[in-house]
């Protein structure tokens, strides 16, 4: 059962991502991407990581993609007038597709060499309690570093937004 769900979710994720990167309209690609993130979140749940699945939805689908949507809307790329109207043609796609195919081929060859690859993933479940224990005991220093980095990011975003906003009256808040 879990095996089938894995493959279905994997196909959904890949197809949705492929649709997302080929759409001309950024808003459409964001919708497809949110779809793909949902599939990924369910994959995480399947692999025994309920907390990561929840955060995938809350942070990626609920915050980061919303931020993208916000920026697109603020830059006034309405349905009538699109940012890159023509989009990349087949001529631009061809070399990238070839490159991607080559890279995937290399990956497959490498996987063949690795003996760990053929191991099966067991059914496993990390309860939020275990997760929290490891996070706050073994990685306490890393949490401090990451929180500092979030602070720097907040200050940086504030500075960049303020500098951009000074030109126009009011600007972005």
């Amino acid at each position, binding site marked *: 059962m879990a095996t089938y769900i894995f493959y279905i979710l994997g196909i959904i994720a890949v197809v949705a991502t492929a649709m997302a990167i080929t759409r001309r309209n950024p808003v459409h690609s964001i919708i497809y991407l949110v779809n793909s993130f949902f599939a990924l979140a369910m994959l995480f749940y399947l692999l025994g990581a309920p907390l990561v699945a929840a955060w995938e*939805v809350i942070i990626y689908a609920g915050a980061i993609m*919303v931020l993208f949507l916000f920026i697109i809307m603020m830059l006034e790329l*309405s349905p009538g007038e699109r940012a890159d109207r023509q989009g990349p043609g087949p001529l631009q796609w061809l070399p990238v597709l070839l490159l991607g195919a080559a890279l995937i081929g290399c990956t497959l060859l490498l996987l063949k060499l690795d003996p760990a690859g053929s191991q099966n993933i067991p059914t496993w479940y990390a309860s939020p309690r275990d997760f929290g224990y490891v996070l706050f005991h073994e990685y306490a220093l890393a949490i401090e570093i990451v929180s500092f980095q979030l602070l720097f990011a907040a200050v940086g975003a504030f500075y960049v937004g303020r500098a951009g906003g000074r030109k126009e009256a009011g600007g972005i808040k």
Partner: protein
Amino acid sequence: MPEWLLITLLILAKLGLVFFVLLTLAAYLVLAERKILGRMQLRPGPNRVGPFGLMQPLADVIKLLTKEDFIPDQADKWLFMLAPGLAAVTALLTFAVVPFGPPLTLFGHEVPLVVCDLNIGVLFFLGLSSLAVYGMTLGGWASNSKYALLGAIRGLSQLISYELSMGLALVPVVMLARSFSLNDIVMAQADVPFALVNPLAFLIFLISIVAESKRIPFDLPEAENELVAGFHTEYSGMRFGLFFVGEYINLIILGSMLTVFFLGGWMGPFLPGIVWFSIKVLLVCFFFIWVRGTLPRLRYDQLMHFGWKILLPLSLLNVILTGAFLLWRQG
């Protein structure tokens, strides 16, 4: 009857019950809101359709169903059609984790009165409430109208700002209950509801859910006298109806979340659990309507100032204080 069939049937029955009750309650909440607002303004409210206007929701639904479904010319058609459904579905889904009563014993089985008791119920609620932004935003963007776009941008930034303090107000609750499951959180409030244990978190959560429900005094996304009707300006017929129903279902959901997290859920003396739960949720809904009848709308900069400079630091401080208190109590 095999075990799995019974369990499936019970889950389906609970789903159907929740769905039916939620939709009916949402319809009658609209009527209740109009009635109560009317009484607060010294007028009787709708009283024409049926006795005391009790058939008004039915009349509204018939009106909405028979109206023309209008799609603007330059609109992004698919997203325009998708958005209202998204708004209603995200609101409905959240109720899956709400425990609305103590476990019942049916056919020798213990049936928990919750559609699905997830062990990460709090995160499920937060995730879905962060997805609720999409219905509104996409609806506003896809309409290709300036008022709808402005309403959508306003709503988007308002919702993601107040979601932070809402989530942070829930952290003390999780710390006190030592679980993400809503059932355990209700169980932890058997003696004292968390509203009395941690009144600051209660207050922050209350203000944040008023902002999350996009209602007065935080109804900037649909401020009628500035933005026509905000993000649903271009909607008509049942698509508008879905937005409308979604909003009221969202109200019930947020009310039941407040009940579960801070008012002790279905805990209460004498009466059965479901009755206590309904009384508490309806009281919270009345409070929402009361707020709407009382307070004026905030200005947009006041809203952002309040969210980021007052509510967010307060909720962070509250997390620290609760943690210190718990550590001190442990000794």
